[in-house]
């Protein structure tokens, strides 16, 4: 790519189509291989399945051509590949469950959710013509986000599943509102921080070489901390709490460029978690399981490390190259289709396959961050950066938990794991990133603004940091903001 001259801006839609073909081949091929391995025949619905996935993906591609022609060409194929691999693995686990007369039927529902999520993503792309519109709803987003986070605590609709109260049930449908909350809160954080970043960045006392913020500006981070602790205590959900607080601290850092905020944030969270670990048995047991997973008494305890260690057994049996699609025993791990789908993939695709999947996430999140670097307005930068980071952070929390780098939490792997809420939320994130990347890569409309022309094409042709950095002074953000605000009146 570096050899492409920075001349005309290439929308990259053809490249996207080419990559989509590869991604679809991967997903549909995996689905076919699962069928061949488990029943010695292609899955009966392979044609319908393949056609459906192709139609959805090509549909998305056409929507992009129509509404966001300059959107990043790599994001969609990567996500389609991940979604397809996830579907194939869930289908494979279904067949294992069926063979043992256990409840199956996850794949069908996941496919339905994929369709709904992709259509919704397309709707977002069509309806939301400019991501800056979202900034108008900064405080609406705050209220909505907090409400979504607190929703599972509501009586009647709130449900406790496996000890964590993070679900709501309305009629037959169940939902994890925290998944949507992370988008809404990212809108709020971006809107709030872009307005208040100067205040928050003001220097306070200097301690041990660290420039601390002013004490009076600690309010927001303390509030966020309080909310995340409340999540930990009342919903007993370490994962959501960690994700929410990580998103806030990450975006605070992006807005203020002050490491001190990160140090304060991490300190607060670790302190809070340490206290929680002493005070709350369910948090304490998570830590105990993490540190002493292989000890027999912890293994046999309930809740114990049984699930975690069975996941490790699965991954270990996969070894370097895996058992192959349909050849392992992922069903021996509880929640193999959702929380532990990473272990299932590690078992059947091996370390090689798992590393390849992680690389897909690296590409996805780096593309997201590059979009943030490329986009001109501060809100867009914060919003895109925040969403890319939250996907990466969620991967870290999930895979880290499964591989025993950090304590296990109840989060699900974006795009791979079974779960409608997660799919829906992450596809909306994709739509938003695509939307922002379109404006980041779109050539500036005013022909007189040469530097912007360069900026617009830069992300497509050179490492993001090289070109985009110098020509996008902080002042540019402010100017955009003013224009934006003016336009609102």
């Amino acid at each position, binding site marked *: 790519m570096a050899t492409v001259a920075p001349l005309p801006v290439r929308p990259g839609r053809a490249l996207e189509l080419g990559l989509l073909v590869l991604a679809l081949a991967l997903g549909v091929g995996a689905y076919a291989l699962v069928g061949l391995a488990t029943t010695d025949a292609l899955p009966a619905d392979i044609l319908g399945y393949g056609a459906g996935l192709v139609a959805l993906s090509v549909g998305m591609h056409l929507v992009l051509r129509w509404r966001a022609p300059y959107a990043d060409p790599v994001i969609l194929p990567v996500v389609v590949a991940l979604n397809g691999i996830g579907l194939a693995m869930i289908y494979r686990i279904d067949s294992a469950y069926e063979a043992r007369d256990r409840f199956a039927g996850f794949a069908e529902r996941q496919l339905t959710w994929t369709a709904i999520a992709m259509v919704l993503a397309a709707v977002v792309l069509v309806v939301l013509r400019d991501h800056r519109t979202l900034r108008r709803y900064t405080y609406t987003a705050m209220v909505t986000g907090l409400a979504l986070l607190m929703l599972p605590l509501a009586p009647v609709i709130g449900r406790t599943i496996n000890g964590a109260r993070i679900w709501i049930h309305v009629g037959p449908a169940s939902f994890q509102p925290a998944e949507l909350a992370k988008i809404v809160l990212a809108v709020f954080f971006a809107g709030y921080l872009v307005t208040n970043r100067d205040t928050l960045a003001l220097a306070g006392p200097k301690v041990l070489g660290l420039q601390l913020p002013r004490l009076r500006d600690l309010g927001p981070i303390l509030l966020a901390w309080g909310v995340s602790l409340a999540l930990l205590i009342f919903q007993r959900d370490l994962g959501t709490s960690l994700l929410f607080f990580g998103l806030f601290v990450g975006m605070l850092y992006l807005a203020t460029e002050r490491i001190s905020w990160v140090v304060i944030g991490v300190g607060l969270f670790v302190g809070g978690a340490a206290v929680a670990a002493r005070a709350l048995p369910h948090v304490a047991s998570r830590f105990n399981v993490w540190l002493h997973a292989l000890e027999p008494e912890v293994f046999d305890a309930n809740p114990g490390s049984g699930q975690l260690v069975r996941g490790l057994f699965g991954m270990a049996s996969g070894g370097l190259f895996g058992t192959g699609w349909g050849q392992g025993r992922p069903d021996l791990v509880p929640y193999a289709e959702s929380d532990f789908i990473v272990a299932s993939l590690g078992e059947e695709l091996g370390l090689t396959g798992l590393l390849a999947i992680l690389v897909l996430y690296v590409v996805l999140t*780096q593309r997201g961050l590059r979009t943030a670097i490329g986009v001109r307005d501060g809100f867009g930068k914060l919003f895109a950066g925040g969403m890319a980071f939250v996907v990466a952070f969620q991967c870290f929390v999930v895979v880290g938990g499964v591989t025993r780098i950090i304590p296990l939490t109840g989060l699900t792997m974006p795009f791979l794991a079974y779960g409608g809420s997660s799919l829906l939320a992450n596809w909306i994130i994709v739509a938003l990133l695509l939307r922002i990347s379109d404006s980041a890569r779109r050539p500036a409309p005013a022909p007189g603004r040469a530097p912007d022309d360069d900026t617009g094409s830069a992300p497509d042709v050179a490492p993001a940091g090289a070109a985009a950095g110098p020509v996008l002074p902080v002042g540019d953000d402010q100017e955009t903001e003013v224009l934006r605000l003016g336009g609102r009146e």
Partner: protein
Amino acid sequence: MNTPLRRLSSVVMVMFLGLMLGATWVQFAQAPALNNDQRNVRTLYREYGNFRGPIVVGGQAIASSVPVDDSFGYQRVYANGPLYAPVTGFYSVVYGREGIERYFNTELNGSADSLFYERLQDLVTGRQTRGASVELTIDPVLQQVAWDALGDQRGAVVALDPTTGAILAMVSKPSYDPNALASHDFAATREAWAALTTDPSQPMANRAIAGNTYPPGSTFKLVTAAAALENGLTADTPVAAPQTLTLPQTSTVLHNFGGSACSPTGAMTLADALRVSCNTAFAQIGVDLGADELRAQAEAFGFDTPLNVPMRVAESHFPEDPDAPQTALSAIGQYEVRVTPLQMAMVAATIGNGGVQMTPYLVQTVRSQDLTVVETAEPVERGRAVSASTAAQLRDMMVSVVENGTGRAARIPGIAVAGKTGTAQTSDDVPPHAWFTAFAPAEAPRIAVAVVVEHGGSMGSEATGGAVAAPIARAVIQAALGGGQ
């Protein structure tokens, strides 16, 4: 804001590198330890999913793996399960392995060192690794005859080839069906296991080699007689044979069987004492020889020595430090002398083989899936138990036991059978164990047999070794040698 974004993207890279290292740690560095963790059922499934080699007797598989459509892939099936259960053992997902299934597990599942070359071939040619077949020394005809002859009685029959040590038959009753334990229906397996382990008749005990060891009764007089012959007596040496013997240092009076006199004169030759199984005579011989001589002779026959065939054989035992009355009782196979039927078969076989004991073995050949012989058993001498002349004298004495002594029920026209009866008291209120051990033909034996029938079998308190056990041995010998009725 681009500087923090670039830093953040470095942080994201570091996070993913951490995840990659974590995955590598689990799937590569720790994988061997995790795969060998005993809590890891995958290892079990993998093993059970492989084709396991058959256990073969007389060219027919008595244990084989057949493909089934369940999560394991193969089901272990035992043809004629109860008949061969003491040999095959079982192969259970829930309760592990026993018998040949356990001791030749690596050969049967294909992971043995001796099959390394086969595995290498499989790797190169892409052929699925299959376990080797294990061929036993058991003669299916003798096994069936012994099984039938024992009938519904509790006990065991062991037959050996005296010249090689090959085990020709190993029957234990009551038996069990290993198919019930090999079932992939875990609930049914657990039920069967619970029923078998709580059954007071102990069907899973291999009475031939590793059940509760038995007092040998008069069959132990072979050992006492051997010790006497080795210590200068001959078959014709007159020995004291009183009607009763007051045990030294006690007032306990030892009787002969049925309270009868062994000899009107109160003395008889050693050969006659063995022929009529005279308790008082052998008790006195034992006292005269001393416990150390008796123990040395017993150990020469294999007592108190570990043995695997390949299953672990319970050690037959001669008391540690008996006093004189205990020595007297030990000399006639009472007190704390305990034996396995295999041990008594080995005593007979050793005498038949001219005093040289052959190590018993059960596995003749191991063949890889392409029928190449991987391992084959060679007869191994275990040592000389008695001199050739002692063996010859004992042989003649044993022949007269069958010709016109207590073992007449084992007589086979045209074949010289050498044998010895035993009727072992356990306690006053339960019938004695009936014993018979023999080899034939006496001059050039091809089979040695030991039979024990617990608590007199169908005859109860009226039982003697001659009446209950000898006919069973006779049936087996007859089947082996094809003699007339």
